């Protein structure tokens, strides 16, 4: 069946018929084929047929080029999602008050966004009260505070205190930065729930939180 679809898709390419090509893909999708599988099971075999036709001389150079243009037009139908789907998880990100280091925070924030999380970047030199205000405002339950100096790293405890004072013990506080990477005890001292040792680590932490929370039927 897939072979037939690939042949039909190939035929649409050489006929320079993008509408039919789209229709072939939609039918396959309607038939239950996953978006992520379309490329391998349909598009790539059709392209192989196209290459074979060009090699054997069944189609000429001009047709080959035009067919490739059609393929280009409908590629987005067949490729896996280019961006991650919205996870629905909101993460507040910011550098601690009096800390102007932003590189690590920016890289982590971008990685979280790229993974489909809703990232609200509060920037550098963020006061603890601001984390709380924005958490209340956005409904975020995950806050990632970056600190690169010992003094500012210790001061992250004030963020936890601020949440506690507002009765927000449910807030998950993640921390990142050299002092926390060096001394995991420091993260516990400031009341953090986890240490992000870079972008990938942050992604894993948030994914785990999402899994645990979703598993427990909570809103992440």
């Amino acid at each position, binding site marked *: 069946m897939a072979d037939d679809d690939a042949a039909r898709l190939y035929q649409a390419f050489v006929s320079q018929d993008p509408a039919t090509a789209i229709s072939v893909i939609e039918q396959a999708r309607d038939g239950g084929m996953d978006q992520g599988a379309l490329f391998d099971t349909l598009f790539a*075999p059709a392209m*192989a047929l196209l*290459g*074979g036709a060009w090699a054997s001389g069944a189609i000429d150079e001009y047709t080959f080029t035009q067919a490739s243009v059609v393929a280009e037009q409908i*590629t987005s139908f067949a490729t*896996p999602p280019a961006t991650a789907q919205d996870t629905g998880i909101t993460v507040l990100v910011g550098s601690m008050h009096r800390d102007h280091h932003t590189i690590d925070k920016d890289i982590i924030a971008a990685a979280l966004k790229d993974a489909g999380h809703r990232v609200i970047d509060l920037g550098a030199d963020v006061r603890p009260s601001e984390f709380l205000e924005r958490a209340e405002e956005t409904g975020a339950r995950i806050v990632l505070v970056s600190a690169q100096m010992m003094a500012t790293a210790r001061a992250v405890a004030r963020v936890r205190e601020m949440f506690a004072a507002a009765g927000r013990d449910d807030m998950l506080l993640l921390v990142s930065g050299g002092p926390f990477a060096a001394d995991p005890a420091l993260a516990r001292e400031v009341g953090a729930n986890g240490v992000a040792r*870079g972008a990938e680590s942050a992604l894993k932490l948030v994914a785990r939180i999402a899994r645990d929370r979703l598993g427990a039927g909570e809103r992440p």
Partner: protein
Amino acid sequence: MTGRSQQVRLAEGLARQGHVAPAVNACYQALRIDESDPFVHCLLAELMLSGDFYDEAISAASRAIELDPECAPAYLALGLAYDRRGGMWDRSILVWHELAEVVPDLVTAHVQLGEAFAAAAFEEEAIDAWRRALELDPSEARAMYNLAVAALKREGMATALPGFRKAGELDPSQDDLFFSLAGVYDDGEEAPDPADVPPDRKSRIAAAYGLAFEEDYFAAAELIRLILDEDADDAEALGLASYLYLKQEAANEAMACALRALTISTRTPTAVYCLGVAFARRQGLARHAARVFSALAKAVPDEPMPHVLLAESLLALQRFSAARESYLTAVALDPACVRARFGLAAVLFTEGRHAEADWEIRRAAYHDTRRQGLFWALYDEYAEGRS
């Protein structure tokens, strides 16, 4: 102005041939004759730099500049020595500024100036310097890599990745991989005229590779057509056809040819490579690219570039630690792989390991300037000006 003495020319000749110890000896002999010859100090600086003896290089280059403030190659040696020695960014910035003034069209001076600025945390100035470098030479890969790293630091990997890819395409090492996979090496001979190629498959494919190597893609394509007309299932010819399309920015045609080649024979590494490159250029196909490059890396484990390409596709998937491992493999296979060094630096930045990342960038500069043979170009120019 005077030319170089015979003793200096002897030292120079030895240095050019890489005979470091005799060259150093010859320099010292020359200094005994004339201590105030900037050429000798300049040569000594280069020789010391080639052995990573930074303090000695700094001392010799400084003396050369003291003797002649127009001695461009000495500025190059001095700047590189400061950069590699570390902890001397303020002086390094001054030196690269000076060199850019002495030789205004020297792209590397601007690239290095940018790196010195970046190391001293003057990001804006660094970006300006790299942009100036690209204005002077749009194909300056290292400036592009640096801009990609700067983008990473500000906006994360997704913004930086296209920069890395673009820089990679400017970097000739990727094409080298294709020809290496094909078993084609530069023998120094010109590719034949297509009309003179004997009408057999072996001669045609060899000539087609030669023409592709010389970037005569149309002539190469004609020969490929002739091969395919006789055997449409020639996987190797299809692999080369795919490459030719890639070089002409025709990614779909390239993909079609590569896929057809692999349908005929999965053991066509050139087609695997082309397919990976075609996938890497498409949004959403990073996972496919990773799969293909992973297979390629396994097929040719001693080639550094497949590991680099795999790492780049892993970056797109945000699998940074896996990318780090691939980059490390590439660097172990070829410590001079500038692309892998910058990629590794990018990964280290994502892990907050800034000092190590900066070091990788410094190592990239080290290998890149060596590869270019810049010192000798400046030296010859300087010698010409003095004669």
